[in-house]
């Protein structure tokens, strides 16, 4: 039993089992939205860019308006970092738009999908992870260096400062616990983000890579 033996029959079989579409049906289909993976990424990028810009307006406002000196520096630096992140998202969006055409060879098409999704996952993870320690360490440092300002002293007096109510040993234990908690939080956040990105894009990416390997062998 050979494939060539059934060539004509198989061709006929594949061409049956469907209803022919009219001009109106096809025109109707053209009005619908595409559901490709690249479009999913494109939509996600658009959302993040718009949301990021809106949130960053708040950061910039806080950078100029916050009462404490450290808060102004913190929001100022954070908004600069956010803008860098947003420019990176715009760069990814431009790259995504460049591969919207599906009339390349199958190998080229697979390759552009793989490169784009790979880069999207990699950079997204790197930038998200970079923001956490920068935010925490920078916030801690600025809070410490701003410790003698009037605003901070007022905050101490109003009872917000936990450390002011502890003795030396208690404070050391508190700080050690806090550092441990932060480290575990960062570690957990790293693995959670990695897992979440894999869940969203990883399986699909593996499938594409598998196709690519098969095509090259």
């Amino acid at each position: 039993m050979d494939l060539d033996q059934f060539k004509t029959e198989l061709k006929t079989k594949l061409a049956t089992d469907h209803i022919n579409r009219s001009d109106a049906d096809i025109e109707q289909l053209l009005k619908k939205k595409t559901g490709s993976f690249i479009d999913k990424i494109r939509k996600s990028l658009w959302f993040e860019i718009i949301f990021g810009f809106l949130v960053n307006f708040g950061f910039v406002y806080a950078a100029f308006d916050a009462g404490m000196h450290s808060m102004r520096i913190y929001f100022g630096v954070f908004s600069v970092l956010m803008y860098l992140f947003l420019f990176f998202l715009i760069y990814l969006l431009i790259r995504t738009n460049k591969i919207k055409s599906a009339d390349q060879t199958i190998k080229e098409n697979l390759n552009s999908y793989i490169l784009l999704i790979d880069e999207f996952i990699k950079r997204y993870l790197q930038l998200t992870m970079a923001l956490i320690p920068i935010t925490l360490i920078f916030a801690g440092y600025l809070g410490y260096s701003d410790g003698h300002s009037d605003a901070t002293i007022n905050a101490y007096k109003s009872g917000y400062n936990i450390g002011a109510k502890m003795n030396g040993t208690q404070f050391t234990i508190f700080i050690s616990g806090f550092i441990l908690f932060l480290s575990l939080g960062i570690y957990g956040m790293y693995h959670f983000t990695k897992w979440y990105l894999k869940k969203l894009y990883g399986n699909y990416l593996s499938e594409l890579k598998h196709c690519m390997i098969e095509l090259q062998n």
Partner: protein
Amino acid sequence: MMAQQEFVSLLKTHQNIVHKVCNLYMDQHKDREDLFQEITLQAWKAYQSFRGDAKFSTWLYRVALNTAITFYRKEKRSPSIYTTDELPEMVSQDGPDPIEAQLKAMYTAIGELSKIDKAIVMLYLEDYAYQEIGEMMGITANNVAVKMNRIKTKLKEQSQKYMEQA
């Protein structure tokens, strides 16, 4: 607007190509409908860059296969196994037709090939030369020949297995 009318007319004439790809890659009716829609949209997007260097049918095959290979299904339906229940009844008045049974076994075996192998088989069934298949896939004609031999052997073994089971 003229371009859209032109595209709709061309797609209507060549819609068999899209149906074939949908039937080959999807075993559920709903998935075939989704893939048909996606191929139509991707072809329309790519049509702006279609300059007529290749025949429309060849170009459409490339777009349809690219879309089918990278098609993303949100929810997993049943596993992609071609059930013989979906094929037309092959029992005639004189009992089961052996040719029909073999055809059914071969069809089932094709349905279980990988996405890449399905694309090669599809183009092979359409009588494209190895050189042309290679150009569409982005590999050499020699590579296509090697793959095709491998696929034929696999299909022979698999379809025989299905025949024995039947």
